[in-house]
């Protein structure tokens, strides 16, 4: 095992730079452990986000050696063989300070994609039976475990190239709702994902699918949206 890691951490906002730190290596050390060690022993002004530390909340997502990952679930030894690490804030989001970025646009696009549930029943109605084996439910369940960590959003080059693009997370959630028979907002949702920057802007690079820590597949969800939206368009249902 290496004795130490040479870690380059982004400091500042968009106009910052990488600063080097030397961190003692420990067994089973995660990248989040390393960031925390720097903040506690070298520079208390280092800003970063975390919460659960166990791979459930997605708060600790950062770019490690260029790849967006949950740092609490990334063993340092697994991402470097030379003892060098580069830690940066997630790509495609404005940097607030150091390793913390502004997630506002991520959630704004979530809303823009109509990736929210529109209820149709009230507490006075009978509960709608949704069979787990129902194909629409299977499709929805396949994408439902998204915790909005923005790893896919950061991995996506189309997000980087096209500021209008809603991004894989928002569109993935929209797809789960398209498949939710209880939802009453299907028309608005198809309109939303059919606009400029909607699902059709996806070029199927599949970086989102490659990097999602929950093994979700936004590319497949977006492919489903493309087909559904094109069908609705050809039938004149979209105006």
């Amino acid at each position, binding site marked *: 095992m290496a004795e130490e890691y040479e870690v380059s951490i982004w400091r500042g906002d968009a106009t910052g730079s990488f600063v080097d730190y030397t961190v003692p290596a420990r067994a089973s050390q995660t990248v989040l452990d390393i960031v925390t060690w720097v903040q506690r022993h070298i520079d208390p002004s280092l800003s970063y986000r975390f919460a659960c530390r166990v791979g459930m909340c997605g708060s600790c997502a950062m770019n490690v050696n260029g*790849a967006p990952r949950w740092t609490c679930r990334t063993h340092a030894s697994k991402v470097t063989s030379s003892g060098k690490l580069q830690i940066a804030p997630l790509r495609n989001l404005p940097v607030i300070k150091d390793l913390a970025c502004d997630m506002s646009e991520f959630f704004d696009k979530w809303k823009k994609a109509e990736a929210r549930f529109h209820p149709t029943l009230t507490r006075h109605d009978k509960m709608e039976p949704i069979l787990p084996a129902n194909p629409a439910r299977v499709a929805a369940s396949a994408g439902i475990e998204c915790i909005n960590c923005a790893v896919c959003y950061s991995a996506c*080059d189309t997000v980087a190239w096209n500021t209008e693009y809603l991004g894989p997370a928002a569109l993935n959630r929209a797809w789960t709702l398209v498949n939710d028979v209880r939802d009453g907002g299907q028309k608005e949702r198809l309109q939303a994902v059919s606009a400029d920057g909607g699902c059709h802007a996806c*070029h*199927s*690079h*599949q*970086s989102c*699918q*490659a*990097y*999602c820590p929950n*093994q979700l*597949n936004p*590319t*497949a969800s977006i*492919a489903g949206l*493309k*087909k559904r939206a094109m069908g609705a368009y050809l039938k004149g249902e979209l105006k």
Partner: protein
Amino acid sequence: MSASRQKLLWIAALIHRVSGLVLAIFLPLHFLVLGLALSQASRLDGFLRWSDMPVVKVAEMGLVILLTVHLLGGLRLLVLENAGWSARQGAWALAAGGVSVIAGFAFLFQVL
């Protein structure tokens, strides 16, 4: 997800875009040359004789490869977007590249 697989499909997408761009630039030139047949058939002949040069034949082979890879990559996308997900897209992308190169060589052997 293995990084190598992600890289493969990303490269496939890049090849698809670049091949399309090169073909799009080539197309007006192609049309202009063919249009010479309208009134300047002798100029077209002169141009076609120029294409006897080996370097031009190799360039044409390149165009055949680009056209074939763009077609096959595009078919892969059409299948993905209409027939559902497949885990074997990496294999298809590699096959598309292979078939395109074969098509290019088939062309080259015909013209050399």
